[in-house]
């Protein structure tokens, strides 16, 4: 028989001091964050080196970029650009999701729809949005719609493809089980197929989000007053490489934030559907 003295134990007991387990996890997370920071610092150092090597006409140094950012933030350009581009991406992506998911579900479920839409999907998805920029402006003008439509174009194919792939990957025994429990076709689609497809839809949404960011710069090439893409393009005319750097880096940060928000929201709200991001 051992005497139990507070605070010490010779052999590991099942209910260890609660701080220990979480302590180790926090230490792990801190370590990951630390490595992240170290990597970024190394990156910035390399950047500075390149700036010094090639001169400020070609590469804006970190400090130059920072002061350019302050300059653009000061007169509101940066903020307006972020809002303009951010909004276009959100709307275009949202529409891509709203159209892509139902179409993807139908394609996955109904062979007739799949066969009818296949030629168009397999053809258009290889044409990059930038090829449509001129047409978009000619058809829709230089306003918001042409840009949003291009973002929509790039999102909808990815979401549709991922959704339909998800539908076709639903485990057959789930479908059979639902049928033999009395579910009709529509109930199976709503209560079994759709929930099973959620992880695929989320993947499609994430990929579409990434692609939307890739497209925003092309979308804002022509006649766009405000936006991160237009900032990048028009800065060339002023010969301000540092503004270009600001635009690019802000775009990257914005994309990171959007993706992170999407991931957190999806895994919180949709965890029961098997979404783990």
């Amino acid at each position, binding site marked *: 028989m051992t005497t139990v003295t507070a605070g010490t134990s010779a052999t590991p007991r099942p209910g260890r001091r609660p701080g220990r387990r979480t302590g180790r996890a926090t230490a792990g997370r801190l370590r990951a964050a630390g490595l992240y920071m170290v990597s970024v610092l190394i990156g910035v150092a390399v950047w500075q080196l390149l700036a010094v090597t090639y001169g400020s006409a070609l590469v804006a140094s970190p400090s130059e970029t920072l002061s350019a950012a302050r300059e653009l933030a000061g007169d509101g350009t940066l903020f307006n650009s972020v809002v303009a581009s951010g909004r276009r991406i959100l709307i275009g992506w949202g529409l891509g999701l709203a159209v892509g998911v139902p179409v993807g579900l139908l394609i996955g479920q109904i062979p007739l729809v799949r066969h009818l839409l296949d030629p168009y999907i397999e053809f258009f998805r290889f044409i990059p949005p930038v090829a449509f920029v001129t047409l978009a402006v000619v058809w829709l003008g230089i306003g918001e719609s042409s840009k949003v439509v291009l973002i929509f174009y790039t999102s909808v194919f990815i979401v549709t493809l991922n959704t339909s792939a998800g539908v076709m990957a639903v*485990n057959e*025994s*789930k479908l*059979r*089980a*639902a*049928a*033999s*429990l*009395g*579910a*009709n076709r529509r*109930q199976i689609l709503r*209560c*079994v197929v759709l*929930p*099973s497809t*959620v992880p695929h839809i989320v993947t499609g949404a994430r990929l579409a989000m990434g692609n939307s960011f890739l497209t925003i710069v092309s979308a804002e090439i022509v006649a766009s007053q405000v936006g991160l893409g237009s900032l990048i393009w028009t800065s060339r005319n002023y010969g301000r490489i540092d503004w270009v750097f600001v635009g690019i880096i802000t775009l990257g940060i914005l994309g990171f934030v959007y993706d992170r928000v999407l991931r957190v929201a999806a895994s919180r709200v949709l965890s*029961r*559907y*098997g979404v783990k991001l």
Partner: protein
Amino acid sequence: MTKTIATPRPPDGSVPGSGGTRGAALSATGVGIRFGSFEAVRDISLDIAAGEFLCLLGPSGCGKSTLLSAMAGFVPVCEGGLAVDGTPVGGPDPDLGMVFQSSEALFDWMTVRQNVAFGPRMRGQSRAARAELADTYLGLVGLRHCADRFPGQLSGGMRQRVQIARVLAGGPRVVLMDEPFGALDAQTRQVMQDEMGRIWKASGCTVVFVTHDIDEAILLADRIAVMTAGPAASVKAVYPVDLPRPRDPADPAAAELRRGLREDIGEEVRKSLRDQGLDLEETR
């Protein structure tokens, strides 16, 4: 052991209270199932009495799962007919419940309770009625305490119990089971087999149970239909199991039955392996 095709006996063991006359009779007449040029089963004729527990026993790949799928209405019959209480099987039906070998058939995004209430929900029953049904069948399989957990949080044996409860809550008259305990470890399987006997008695359903495990068949079945090796499998023989319940594996009559079945199946397995190219001695 003589291989006789015996006439169906009424099952042993009373069916008290719930669902005494629940079971339906299932009949197969000259059933043949083909997939393109591949003939899975040929000329299967079986008469399964209401409330009976019939085992389909046979080596792997002999078409017993295919036959079961046809009984459930998932696979169309190419020759002959399948009927439940006289009505031909036209497609999946709530009267024909199926417990799958893999618990992948469960809906992982729904709680255990929601899974079990799925059948009643599809039938349009009220929330209160669904809750009560779910509670009853969860109690029957002993999972009331896990009702609000998700299938992913349960062990293999528990997931199969959820499947059984889900199927029973759908109110079927025939329960088809496709090697439901095949993926479980030996100890869990033993416990589940005992549970199955108890559940069947309480529900009063007709059960068609596919297995390749002879001991399992002897433990559970009223009759055992031995299938030949595929392709074009058919019923080789039907053994009545005239042993008192609860089944005692140590009973010499059981041992005798086991020997006979082993011989029968062994023959089929060897034939099947030889067909697949394995070199075996001609006689054991």
